[in-house]
């Protein structure tokens, strides 16, 4: 062991000079802080803007008369509100992953975050997308009273294309997060393993 320690010390001595200056590092650190902030709040801001835009559209531009149409509006809004709340909670959970904690604690917090994300990608996403889609189709009959067939077909097609794009994006994110989850579980096993 003493020989290994000696070799280790020698190798450390041959590390070489830092490639960047302290100023560059501080600049990069500030940029990273900003990008983390955008990552945390970006989704929430986009979803909130969508919610406000849809609400304004329904209350100021198009007034739905039928009960089915009104139910559609409620469903679409509910789906978005649930999604926003989930993102807020997710952001709070991700902030708990702190590199200043010990490795076991950091791993446990990260595991808890990714377990929550797994639940989000499963039942919660299905529920929110389901509510949103149901809401959209509840609005269709009343839209059909004022729009011609071609516009209706285009509207539905664009909705389907949009849905496929969203599902594809979510799938990509899910695959990455599930890979992270597996990796964290492996590390947890290593941390808990005694024999």
């Amino acid at each position, binding site marked *: 062991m003493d020989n290994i320690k000696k070799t280790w010390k020698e190798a450390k001595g041959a590390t070489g000079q830092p490639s960047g200056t302290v100023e560059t590092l501080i600049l990069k650190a500030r940029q990273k802080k900003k990008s983390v902030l955008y990552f945390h709040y970006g989704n929430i801001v986009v979803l909130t803007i969508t919610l406000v835009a849809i609400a304004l559209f329904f209350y100021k531009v198009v007034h739905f008369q039928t009960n089915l149409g009104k139910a559609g509006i409620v469903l679409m809004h509910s789906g978005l509100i649930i999604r926003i709340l989930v993102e807020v909670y997710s952001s709070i959970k991700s902030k708990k992953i702190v590199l200043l904690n010990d*490795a076991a604690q950091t791993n446990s917090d990260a595991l808890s975050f990714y377990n929550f994300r797994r639940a989000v990608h499963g039942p919660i996403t299905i529920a929110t997308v389901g509510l949103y889609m149901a809401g959209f189709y509840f609005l269709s009959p009343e839209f059909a009273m004022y729009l011609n067939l071609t516009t209706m077909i285009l509207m539905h097609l664009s909705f389907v294309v949009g849905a496929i794009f969203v599902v594809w994006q979510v799938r990509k994110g899910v695959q990455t997060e599930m890979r992270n989850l597996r990796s964290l579980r492996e590390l947890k096993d290593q941390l808990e393993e005694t024999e």
Partner: protein
Amino acid sequence: MSNSTEQKQLYESLFLQHYPMVVQMCTGYMKGDRDLAKDIAQEVFINVWNALPVFKGDAKHRTWIYKITVNSCLLYIRNNKNKQTASLDDVPNYSQVKTETTHTHYDSLYRAIGELPELERLIMMLLLEELEYEEIVKITGLSSINLRVKIHRIKKKIKQLLNQEI
């Protein structure tokens, strides 16, 4: 003197003091790939700067930086497991590429450490850094008994691995 100036001075001294240790830990973790190690070391010091305002002084700066290094390494592996990472085995002309030819002398050590699982690799390097068991417990979050069991096993493994290298 303003707070930000004090913070910058402290950061600069931490950087100069601990840079070799951080790069060395990252090199061991990345199986001898110095370029990758320097990238992670940069990430470590970016994390150090962002964490500096919340440093409460309840631990030594050294322990604190080890914690960030260990977590950054684990995080790096987690985020890049799907990407190709170069190790000594993957780089055919490693000794020719490196200008510092003495590095080849340490290759067998890096290769042996690299054979250990992630956590054992980190514990091994903390041992090589001559940290007290108590400090390693604080960094890893393992119980004292669990750590002793692991260290015993790691020492046996590394001996075998180094014998194979020879």
